[in-house]
Protein backbone atom coordinates (compact mmCIF):
# COMPACT_ATOMS: atom_id res chain seq x y z
CA UNK A 1 0.00 0.00 0.00
CA UNK A 2 1.74 3.08 -1.28
CA UNK A 3 1.19 6.70 -0.27
CA UNK A 4 -0.66 9.27 -2.35
CA UNK A 5 1.43 12.10 -3.76
CA UNK A 6 -0.81 15.10 -4.33
CA UNK A 7 0.60 18.23 -5.97
CA UNK A 8 -1.25 21.47 -5.26
CA UNK A 9 -0.76 23.85 -8.16
CA UNK A 10 -2.41 26.85 -9.78
CA UNK A 11 -0.27 28.72 -12.29
CA UNK A 12 -1.14 32.06 -10.79
CA UNK A 13 0.62 33.11 -7.61
CA UNK A 14 -1.14 34.12 -4.44
CA UNK A 15 -4.38 32.19 -4.95
CA UNK A 16 -3.94 29.96 -1.91
CA UNK A 17 -1.79 26.92 -2.72
CA UNK A 18 0.34 27.15 0.40
CA UNK A 19 -2.70 27.81 2.56
CA UNK A 20 -4.42 24.81 1.00
CA UNK A 21 -1.43 22.52 1.57
CA UNK A 22 -1.10 23.65 5.19
CA UNK A 23 -4.78 23.13 5.93
CA UNK A 24 -5.21 19.89 4.03
CA UNK A 25 -2.03 18.47 5.55
CA UNK A 26 -3.08 19.44 9.05
CA UNK A 27 -6.60 18.15 8.47
CA UNK A 28 -5.37 14.78 7.25
CA UNK A 29 -3.01 14.53 10.23
CA UNK A 30 -5.87 15.32 12.60
CA UNK A 31 -7.63 12.33 11.08
CA UNK A 32 -4.67 10.18 12.05
CA UNK A 33 -3.01 9.79 8.68
CA UNK A 34 0.74 9.97 8.29
CA UNK A 35 1.40 13.15 6.30
CA UNK A 36 4.42 14.94 4.89
CA UNK A 37 4.18 18.36 3.25
CA UNK A 38 6.92 19.34 0.79
CA UNK A 39 7.57 23.00 0.07
CA UNK A 40 8.71 22.84 -3.54
CA UNK A 41 8.97 26.61 -3.93
CA UNK A 42 12.77 26.67 -3.83
CA UNK A 43 14.10 30.13 -3.17
CA UNK A 44 10.77 31.44 -1.83
CA UNK A 45 10.12 29.40 1.25
CA UNK A 46 6.60 29.89 2.67
CA UNK A 47 5.02 26.71 3.92
CA UNK A 48 7.20 26.75 7.03
CA UNK A 49 5.92 30.16 8.09
CA UNK A 50 2.27 29.35 7.43
CA UNK A 51 2.66 26.24 9.58
CA UNK A 52 4.48 28.10 12.34
CA UNK A 53 7.55 25.90 11.93
CA UNK A 54 10.01 28.50 10.70
CA UNK A 55 12.26 28.22 13.74
CA UNK A 56 12.73 24.49 13.37
CA UNK A 57 14.45 24.38 9.98
CA UNK A 58 17.93 22.92 9.87
CA UNK A 59 18.11 21.15 6.51
CA UNK A 60 15.98 21.51 3.41
CA UNK A 61 14.91 19.85 0.16
CA UNK A 62 18.07 20.82 -1.75
CA UNK A 63 20.29 19.47 1.05
CA UNK A 64 18.53 16.11 0.77
CA UNK A 65 18.73 15.98 -3.00
CA UNK A 66 22.44 16.87 -2.95
CA UNK A 67 23.18 14.26 -0.32
CA UNK A 68 24.20 16.78 2.36
CA UNK A 69 21.94 15.02 4.82
CA UNK A 70 19.49 12.16 5.03
CA UNK A 71 15.82 12.65 4.34
CA UNK A 72 15.09 11.73 7.93
CA UNK A 73 17.25 14.59 9.24
CA UNK A 74 15.61 17.21 7.06
CA UNK A 75 12.02 16.27 7.93
CA UNK A 76 10.58 18.51 10.62
CA UNK A 77 8.05 16.85 12.87
CA UNK A 78 5.21 19.16 13.85
CA UNK A 79 4.96 18.52 17.59
CA UNK A 80 1.33 19.56 17.74
CA UNK A 81 0.24 16.46 15.83
CA UNK A 82 0.76 12.77 15.80
CA UNK A 83 2.25 12.33 12.35
CA UNK A 84 2.69 15.56 10.46
CA UNK A 85 6.02 16.41 8.88
CA UNK A 86 7.40 19.23 6.76
CA UNK A 87 10.22 19.14 4.23
CA UNK A 88 11.11 22.80 3.81
CA UNK A 89 12.30 24.53 0.65
CA UNK A 90 15.79 25.96 0.40
CA UNK A 91 15.76 29.69 0.85
CA UNK A 92 18.97 30.63 -0.86
CA UNK A 93 18.97 28.41 -3.92
CA UNK A 94 17.00 28.43 -7.12
CA UNK A 95 14.73 25.98 -8.82
CA UNK A 96 17.26 24.62 -11.30
CA UNK A 97 19.19 22.88 -8.54
CA UNK A 98 16.65 20.10 -8.38
CA UNK A 99 15.63 17.95 -11.34
CA UNK A 100 12.29 16.25 -11.97
CA UNK A 101 14.02 12.86 -11.65
CA UNK A 102 15.33 13.77 -8.21
CA UNK A 103 11.90 14.95 -7.10
CA UNK A 104 10.33 11.73 -8.32
CA UNK A 105 12.89 9.66 -6.46
CA UNK A 106 12.25 11.66 -3.32
CA UNK A 107 8.48 11.22 -3.57
CA UNK A 108 8.85 7.51 -4.29
CA UNK A 109 10.95 7.17 -1.15
CA UNK A 110 8.40 9.05 0.95
CA UNK A 111 5.52 6.98 -0.43
CA UNK A 112 6.89 3.93 1.36
CA UNK A 113 6.41 5.57 4.74
CA UNK A 114 3.66 8.17 4.44
CA UNK A 115 -0.04 7.94 3.61
CA UNK A 116 -0.13 11.39 2.04
CA UNK A 117 2.64 13.46 0.48
CA UNK A 118 1.46 16.98 -0.33
CA UNK A 119 3.61 19.02 -2.69
CA UNK A 120 3.27 22.80 -2.52
CA UNK A 121 3.97 23.81 -6.12
CA UNK A 122 5.48 27.21 -6.94
CA UNK A 123 3.63 29.64 -9.20
CA UNK A 124 4.51 29.59 -12.89
CA UNK A 125 5.08 26.91 -15.48
CA UNK A 126 8.85 26.65 -15.54
CA UNK A 127 11.32 24.32 -13.83
CA UNK A 128 9.75 24.66 -10.38
CA UNK A 129 6.41 23.49 -11.72
CA UNK A 130 7.97 20.61 -13.66
CA UNK A 131 9.81 19.47 -10.54
CA UNK A 132 6.74 19.69 -8.34
CA UNK A 133 4.58 17.53 -10.60
CA UNK A 134 7.31 14.96 -11.34
CA UNK A 135 6.55 12.63 -8.44
CA UNK A 136 2.83 13.29 -8.15
CA UNK A 137 0.06 10.74 -8.60
CA UNK A 138 -2.74 13.28 -8.24
CA UNK A 139 -3.17 17.02 -8.68
CA UNK A 140 -5.30 19.72 -7.10
CA UNK A 141 -5.73 22.99 -8.98
CA UNK A 142 -6.41 26.04 -6.83
CA UNK A 143 -8.02 29.08 -8.38
CA UNK A 144 -9.90 32.18 -7.31
CA UNK A 145 -13.00 33.39 -9.22
CA UNK A 146 -11.01 35.98 -11.17
CA UNK A 147 -10.14 36.15 -14.86
CA UNK A 148 -6.35 35.92 -14.60
CA UNK A 149 -6.39 33.11 -12.07
CA UNK A 150 -8.80 31.05 -14.15
CA UNK A 151 -6.85 31.68 -17.33
CA UNK A 152 -3.66 30.47 -15.69
CA UNK A 153 -5.45 27.47 -14.17
CA UNK A 154 -6.64 26.50 -17.63
CA UNK A 155 -3.05 26.58 -18.90
CA UNK A 156 -1.91 24.38 -16.03
CA UNK A 157 -4.70 21.87 -16.72
CA UNK A 158 -3.59 21.78 -20.35
CA UNK A 159 0.03 21.18 -19.35
CA UNK A 160 -0.90 18.38 -16.98
CA UNK A 161 -2.99 16.67 -19.65
CA UNK A 162 -0.24 16.98 -22.25
CA UNK A 163 2.53 15.77 -19.96
CA UNK A 164 3.24 12.12 -20.66
CA UNK A 165 5.84 11.89 -17.93
CA UNK A 166 3.41 12.01 -15.05
CA UNK A 167 0.83 9.51 -13.85
CA UNK A 168 -1.63 12.25 -12.96
CA UNK A 169 -5.23 11.58 -14.04
CA UNK A 170 -7.80 14.36 -14.15
CA UNK A 171 -6.96 17.08 -11.61
CA UNK A 172 -9.49 18.32 -9.04
CA UNK A 173 -10.45 21.93 -8.41
CA UNK A 174 -10.51 24.06 -5.29
CA UNK A 175 -12.30 27.37 -5.80
CA UNK A 176 -10.79 29.68 -3.22
CA UNK A 177 -11.72 33.04 -1.73
CA UNK A 178 -15.24 33.14 -3.01
CA UNK A 179 -17.34 36.04 -1.69
CA UNK A 180 -21.02 35.08 -1.55
CA UNK A 181 -22.18 38.69 -1.31
CA UNK A 182 -20.35 39.60 -4.54
CA UNK A 183 -21.67 36.48 -6.24
CA UNK A 184 -25.20 37.44 -5.24
CA UNK A 185 -24.76 40.91 -6.76
CA UNK A 186 -23.39 39.45 -9.98
CA UNK A 187 -19.93 40.90 -9.44
CA UNK A 188 -18.13 37.62 -8.98
CA UNK A 189 -18.17 34.39 -10.97
CA UNK A 190 -19.65 31.47 -9.09
CA UNK A 191 -18.85 27.80 -9.09
CA UNK A 192 -21.10 27.08 -12.07
CA UNK A 193 -19.30 29.65 -14.20
CA UNK A 194 -15.89 28.34 -13.22
CA UNK A 195 -16.97 24.73 -13.68
CA UNK A 196 -18.33 25.53 -17.13
CA UNK A 197 -15.05 27.08 -18.19
CA UNK A 198 -12.49 24.77 -16.63
CA UNK A 199 -14.55 21.58 -16.82
CA UNK A 200 -12.75 19.59 -14.13
CA UNK A 201 -14.29 17.98 -11.07
CA UNK A 202 -14.79 20.14 -8.01
CA UNK A 203 -13.04 19.18 -4.78
CA UNK A 204 -14.20 22.13 -2.68
CA UNK A 205 -15.15 25.79 -2.40
CA UNK A 206 -13.50 27.95 0.25
CA UNK A 207 -14.99 31.33 1.15
CA UNK A 208 -12.87 34.42 1.59
CA UNK A 209 -12.41 34.49 5.33
CA UNK A 210 -10.40 36.77 7.61
CA UNK A 211 -9.48 33.77 9.70
CA UNK A 212 -6.90 32.81 7.06
CA UNK A 213 -4.88 35.94 7.75
CA UNK A 214 -5.20 35.50 11.49
CA UNK A 215 -4.19 31.86 11.24
CA UNK A 216 -1.10 32.73 9.19
CA UNK A 217 -0.22 35.43 11.72
CA UNK A 218 -0.25 32.81 14.42
CA UNK A 219 1.13 29.91 12.41
CA UNK A 220 -1.98 27.84 13.21
CA UNK A 221 -3.85 26.54 10.16
CA UNK A 222 -7.52 27.56 10.02
CA UNK A 223 -8.68 23.97 9.83
CA UNK A 224 -7.98 23.78 13.55
CA UNK A 225 -10.73 26.29 14.36
CA UNK A 226 -14.07 24.56 14.69
CA UNK A 227 -16.44 27.34 13.77
CA UNK A 228 -14.99 29.34 10.90
CA UNK A 229 -16.25 29.09 7.34
CA UNK A 230 -12.84 28.57 5.78
CA UNK A 231 -11.91 26.02 8.45
CA UNK A 232 -15.08 24.09 7.78
CA UNK A 233 -14.55 24.23 4.02
CA UNK A 234 -11.06 22.78 4.37
CA UNK A 235 -12.32 20.07 6.69
CA UNK A 236 -14.83 19.05 4.03
CA UNK A 237 -12.08 19.05 1.42
CA UNK A 238 -10.03 16.74 3.61
CA UNK A 239 -12.99 14.39 3.98
CA UNK A 240 -13.51 14.28 0.24
CA UNK A 241 -9.82 13.53 -0.32
CA UNK A 242 -10.26 10.64 2.09
CA UNK A 243 -13.03 9.36 -0.14
CA UNK A 244 -16.07 10.45 1.85
CA UNK A 245 -19.03 11.91 -0.03
CA UNK A 246 -19.61 15.31 1.57
CA UNK A 247 -22.35 17.40 -0.05
CA UNK A 248 -21.44 20.92 -1.12
CA UNK A 249 -22.91 23.53 1.24
CA UNK A 250 -25.01 26.29 -0.35
CA UNK A 251 -23.40 29.70 -0.15
CA UNK A 252 -25.13 31.84 2.40
CA UNK A 253 -26.30 34.28 -0.21
CA UNK A 254 -28.71 31.58 -1.26
CA UNK A 255 -31.14 32.51 1.50
CA UNK A 256 -34.36 32.44 -0.44
CA UNK A 257 -36.88 35.28 -0.42
CA UNK A 258 -37.44 35.44 3.35
CA UNK A 259 -33.76 35.49 4.12
CA UNK A 260 -33.31 38.33 1.65
CA UNK A 261 -36.14 40.33 3.18
CA UNK A 262 -34.78 39.76 6.66
CA UNK A 263 -31.34 40.95 5.54
CA UNK A 264 -32.90 44.09 4.06
CA UNK A 265 -34.47 45.05 7.37
CA UNK A 266 -31.49 44.19 9.53
CA UNK A 267 -29.14 46.27 7.37
CA UNK A 268 -31.39 49.33 7.90
Amino acid sequence: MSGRVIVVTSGKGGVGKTTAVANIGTGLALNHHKVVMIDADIGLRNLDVVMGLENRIVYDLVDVVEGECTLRKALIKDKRFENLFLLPAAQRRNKDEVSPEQMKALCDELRKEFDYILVDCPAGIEQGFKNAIAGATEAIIVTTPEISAIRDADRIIGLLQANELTEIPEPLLILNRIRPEMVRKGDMMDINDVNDILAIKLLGVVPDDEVIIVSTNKGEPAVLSRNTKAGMAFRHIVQRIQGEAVPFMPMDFDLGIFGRLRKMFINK
Partner: protein
Amino acid sequence: MDFKRMVTRSRLGENTPSKNQAVDRLRLVLVHDRAKVTPGLMEKLKEEIIKAITRYVEIDEGQMEMELTSCENRAELVASIPVNRIRRVSG
Protein backbone atom coordinates in the same frame (compact mmCIF):
# COMPACT_ATOMS: atom_id res chain seq x y z
CA MET B 1 -33.12 60.32 -22.00
CA ASP B 2 -32.09 56.70 -22.01
CA PHE B 3 -35.14 55.11 -20.42
CA LYS B 4 -33.86 51.58 -20.56
CA ARG B 5 -30.75 52.49 -18.64
CA MET B 6 -32.73 54.49 -16.09
CA VAL B 7 -35.01 51.58 -15.42
CA THR B 8 -32.16 49.07 -15.15
CA ARG B 9 -30.26 51.30 -12.73
CA SER B 10 -33.22 52.13 -10.55
CA ARG B 11 -34.23 48.50 -10.06
CA LEU B 12 -32.84 47.96 -6.56
CA GLY B 13 -29.66 49.81 -7.56
CA GLU B 14 -28.39 46.97 -9.72
CA ASN B 15 -26.21 47.48 -12.78
CA THR B 16 -25.53 44.94 -15.48
CA PRO B 17 -23.64 42.12 -13.76
CA SER B 18 -19.90 42.46 -14.41
CA LYS B 19 -19.35 38.76 -13.94
CA ASN B 20 -21.08 38.06 -17.23
CA GLN B 21 -18.50 40.21 -18.96
CA ALA B 22 -15.79 38.23 -17.19
CA VAL B 23 -17.24 34.92 -18.34
CA ASP B 24 -17.58 36.07 -21.96
CA ARG B 25 -14.10 37.51 -22.08
CA LEU B 26 -12.61 34.43 -20.49
CA ARG B 27 -14.27 32.08 -22.97
CA LEU B 28 -12.91 34.10 -25.86
CA VAL B 29 -9.42 34.35 -24.44
CA LEU B 30 -9.32 30.62 -23.73
CA VAL B 31 -10.30 29.69 -27.27
CA HIS B 32 -7.19 31.43 -28.46
CA ASP B 33 -4.96 30.29 -25.60
CA ARG B 34 -5.86 26.66 -26.12
CA ALA B 35 -5.48 26.85 -29.88
CA LYS B 36 -2.02 28.35 -29.54
CA VAL B 37 -0.88 26.04 -26.85
CA THR B 38 -2.14 22.65 -28.04
CA PRO B 39 0.55 21.37 -30.35
CA GLY B 40 -0.63 20.74 -33.88
CA LEU B 41 -4.27 21.48 -33.10
CA MET B 42 -4.80 23.70 -36.13
CA GLU B 43 -2.92 21.33 -38.44
CA LYS B 44 -4.88 18.30 -37.27
CA LEU B 45 -8.14 20.23 -37.56
CA LYS B 46 -7.23 21.33 -41.08
CA GLU B 47 -6.37 17.75 -42.12
CA GLU B 48 -9.65 16.40 -40.85
CA ILE B 49 -11.64 19.14 -42.51
CA ILE B 50 -9.84 18.40 -45.79
CA LYS B 51 -10.62 14.69 -45.40
CA ALA B 52 -14.30 15.41 -44.85
CA ILE B 53 -14.61 17.95 -47.64
CA THR B 54 -12.72 16.08 -50.34
CA ARG B 55 -15.35 13.37 -50.31
CA TYR B 56 -17.65 15.82 -52.00
CA VAL B 57 -15.48 18.42 -53.65
CA GLU B 58 -12.07 18.56 -55.20
CA ILE B 59 -10.14 21.37 -53.58
CA ASP B 60 -6.82 23.13 -53.98
CA GLU B 61 -5.19 22.07 -50.69
CA GLY B 62 -2.14 24.24 -51.26
CA GLN B 63 -4.25 27.38 -51.49
CA MET B 64 -6.47 26.55 -48.56
CA GLU B 65 -6.35 28.96 -45.64
CA MET B 66 -7.76 28.49 -42.17
CA GLU B 67 -7.52 30.63 -39.10
CA LEU B 68 -9.07 31.28 -35.72
CA THR B 69 -10.12 34.89 -35.40
CA SER B 70 -11.85 37.14 -32.89
CA CYS B 71 -14.81 39.01 -34.23
CA GLU B 72 -17.19 41.06 -32.05
CA ASN B 73 -16.84 39.12 -28.78
CA ARG B 74 -16.85 35.78 -30.55
CA ALA B 75 -14.18 33.51 -31.81
CA GLU B 76 -14.61 32.26 -35.35
CA LEU B 77 -12.94 29.55 -37.35
CA VAL B 78 -12.66 31.02 -40.82
CA ALA B 79 -11.62 28.87 -43.74
CA SER B 80 -11.07 29.85 -47.31
CA ILE B 81 -11.10 26.77 -49.55
CA PRO B 82 -10.71 27.04 -53.33
CA VAL B 83 -12.96 24.48 -55.00
CA ASN B 84 -11.91 23.01 -58.35
CA ARG B 85 -14.73 20.62 -58.96
CA ILE B 86 -17.78 19.05 -57.32
CA ARG B 87 -17.42 15.26 -57.41
CA ARG B 88 -20.17 13.14 -58.77
CA VAL B 89 -21.30 11.20 -55.72
CA SER B 90 -23.41 8.10 -56.32
CA GLY B 91 -26.52 7.46 -54.21
